[in-house]
């Protein structure tokens, strides 16, 4: 700190006009040091990180920061209507772009409202930087107005969090937050900033911290070559191989490498709910989603395989079913960037810790170099069995119904939007599963949903983040009448920022998934799953300044959707009235194995199929 030159902070753009002055000082480069207040440092640090949007909601503890934002146009602030919406919107932005989403909320209730969104991002490993205001340092711990222990509350649902006690630490802490959030296994990082740290009356020198190194945090860069070779040996020896990939392939931008590996090997591939789009869904080698509501062919292939290659997936209970019955005859290779994901739920034979992109690249290279080849003959027999399972047509539904079937609604959505630059967000429940089963995602980052935490209310605000990230793209949110009401207030945000999102509400008048479980497992006692006082969604959308539509007949659906998606500059809320009794099939009951699926009632029983 020997040479410090304090130029007056000039608001946007930040330019220092005296380069000669600085150059004249011996031994010092021409990098001027500017003096900024804590609040200005926050904004400048975000600018230096290349942040485009901040999703937030003001309040007492962050007013200094909001004042600095007011004077800075490089960062666009999106005012949400509830802090949960801010975190989900930033999350949607991050999922659709791969860049970190940024959130700014106030202390106390601002922070606690953000927690659901932070936990959602944590469970799905989404990079977020969440700046929360805090009461001034001298009163921390005194139960001050709007005080809450944000670091304590968020600790179990963040990748890391910080409390910034001195303004001198602010710039480096924000740099570290972005570094931690975006590297290794990504995740949300909370930076709690007491109000006095952003005091507008105190200025300190600010320099952009370009590189951060942390002795305690060094994400792996590649997989162990010996383990990669072992994995390839297993692949070559396999007679009934299966590739199972998860959200890690999407997060790790490794879709091309996966596609190459799958095509080169000729192996069947299945994706988890989080991994959809990592491999083109219309390809023959794709068996659809696996797990609780996965396809018959994917789950049966999992159950019968002799070598399982798991990539960027974490063996979630919704995927594995009963662990004791999981892939009973398979040698398992598991590639993941997070060592703690490996052998957590299922013991694996060949663990490979590393970024999936790099590891799959290496696997492809080793596979190409091998003298021996894939056992094509056995693979051919394996594919014959798989095609047999595929012929069961487990996603069959009644296409002649007089009511709109939710499956038909998603298929129609696919038909109408398939040729567009299209992103689909989802809420949580039956509609989410129907979308995952029936919408064919050809590219990664196009299917945006809360998989791990299963957060109702995620769909609409996350669509806002996606639409802001891709203003020219078509963005739709598939939702249910229960989920949508959990963040319905964000329709106001959509109006304010002219976000032409298309809401496809599959309205069955029930919390569909709850109703389905009550039908299957609770003797049809529909305890509190019927929403008998639903709003008029058309009127509701209109009251927020949007277009509302109600569609009740199958024959009207495609025309209505085409009309809705034709309104390029309007948010259109489609209240699609669907069959209230429809269930999601196939279904594996919690605690059962992959081979114990419920199939649609019109299909014969599993034993007859075999």
């Amino acid at each position: 700190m020997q040479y410090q030159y304090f130029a007056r902070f000039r608001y946007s753009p930040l330019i220092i006009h005296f380069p000669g002055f600085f150059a004249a000082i011996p031994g010092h480069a021409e990098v001027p040091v500017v003096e900024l207040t804590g609040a200005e440092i926050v904004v400048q640090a975000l600018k230096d990180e290349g942040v485009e949007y901040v999703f937030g909601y003001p309040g007492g503890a962050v007013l200094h920061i909001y004042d600095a934002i007011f004077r800075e146009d490089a960062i666009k602030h999106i005012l949400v209507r509830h802090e949960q919406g801010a975190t989900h919107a930033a999350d949607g932005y991050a999922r659709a772009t791969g860049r970190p989403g940024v959130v700014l909320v106030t202390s106390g209730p601002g922070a606690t409202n953000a927690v659901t969104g932070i936990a959602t991002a944590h469970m799905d490993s989404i990079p977020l930087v969440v700046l929360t205001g805090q009461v001034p340092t001298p009163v921390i711990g005194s139960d001050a107005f709007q005080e809450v222990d944000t670091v304590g509350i968020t600790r179990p649902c963040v990748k890391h969090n910080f409390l910034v006690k001195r303004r001198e630490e602010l710039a480096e802490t924000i740099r570290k937050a972005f570094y931690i959030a975006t590297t290794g296994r990504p995740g949300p990082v909370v930076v709690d900033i007491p109000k006095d740290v952003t005091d507008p009356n105190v200025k300190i020198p600010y320099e952009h911290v370009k590189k951060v190194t942390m002795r305690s945090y060094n994400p792996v860069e590649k997989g162990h070559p010996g383990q990669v070779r072992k994995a390839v040996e297993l692949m070559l020896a396999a007679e009934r191989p299966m590739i199972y990939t998860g959200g890690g392939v999407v997060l790790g931008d490794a879709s091309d490498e996966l596609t190459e590996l799958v095509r080169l090997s000729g192996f069947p591939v299945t994706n988890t709910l989080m991994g959809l789009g990592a491999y083109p869904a219309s390809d023959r080698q794709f068996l659809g989603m696996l797990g609780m509501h996965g396809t018959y062919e994917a789950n049966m292939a999992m159950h019968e395989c002799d070598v399982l290659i798991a990539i960027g997936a974490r063996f979630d209970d919704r995927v594995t079913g009963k662990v004791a019955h999981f892939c009973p005859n398979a040698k398992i290779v598991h590639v993941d960037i997070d060592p703690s994901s490996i052998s957590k739920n299922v013991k694996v034979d060949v663990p490979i810790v590393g970024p999936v992109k790099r590891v799959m690249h290496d696997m492809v290279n080793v596979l190409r170099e091998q003298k021996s080849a894939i056992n094509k003959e056995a693979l051919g027999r394996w594919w014959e069995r798989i095609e047999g399972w595929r012929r069961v047509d487990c996603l069959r539904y009644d296409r002649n119904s007089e009511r709109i079937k939710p499956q038909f609604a998603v298929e129609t959505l696919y038909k109408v939007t398939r040729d567009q630059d299209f992103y689909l967000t989802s809420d949580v429940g039956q509609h989410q599963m129907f979308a995952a089963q029936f919408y064919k995602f050809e590219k990664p980052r196009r299917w945006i949903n809360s998989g791990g935490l299963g957060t109702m209310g995620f769909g609409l605000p996350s669509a806002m983040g996606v639409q802001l990230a891709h203003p020219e793209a078509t963005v739709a949110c598939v939702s249910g009448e229960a989920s949508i009401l959990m963040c319905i207030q964000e329709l106001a945000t959509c109006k304010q920022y002219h976000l032409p999102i298309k809401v496809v509400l599959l309205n069955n008048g029930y919390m569909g998934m709850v109703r389905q479980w009550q039908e299957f497992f609770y003797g049809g006692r529909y305890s509190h799953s019927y929403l008998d006082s639903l709003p008029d969604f058309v009127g509701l959308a209109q009251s927020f300044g949007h277009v509302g539509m109600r569609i009740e007949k199958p024959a009207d659906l495609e025309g209505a959707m085409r009309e809705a998606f034709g309104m390029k500059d309007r948010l259109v809320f489609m209240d699609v009235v669907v069959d209230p009794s429809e269930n999601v099939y196939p279904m594996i009951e919690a605690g059962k194995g992959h081979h114990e699926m419920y199939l649609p009632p019109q299909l014969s029983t599993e034993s007859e199929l075999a």
Partner: protein
Amino acid sequence: MRHIISILLENEAGALSRVAGLFSARGFNIESLTVAPTEDPSLSRMTLVTSGSEDVIEQIMKQLNKLIDTVKLVDLSEGPHIERELMLIKVRAEKGTRDEMKRLADIFRAHIVDVTDASYIVEMTGDGDKLDAFIGIVGPDHIIEVVRSGPLAIARGSRGLTV
């Protein structure tokens, strides 16, 4: 099986609660935990005693390593190591038992660090079994108060757990 894990942590506010929170959130056992700064004031060293199956211990090690504040860690139970615990025990030392208490302390190579006409405070180090043995032999009737540090441990040999 009982495992004794040594962790080098960044000496940051909240680092201890991250470790404690991890154990409660994931339902891991924690028998004892001691922590203090090292010769490098930016680092804390934690000694943690836990138990569980090999799978559980593997997860514990991985989850601890995943904490951003964790610099290094080692499961000392995997090799030869030295384990010590400090105990301060206040015992009744009245007429009739005073001499016996003194003799017991000597036998256990302990020190008497505070004396009144009715009590001693005995300072003692050793592994947990030794401290348990002393407590057992003194007996509940003669114990006023016990405070134990929980074990500290270090691996034998010239190699160290350092940055």
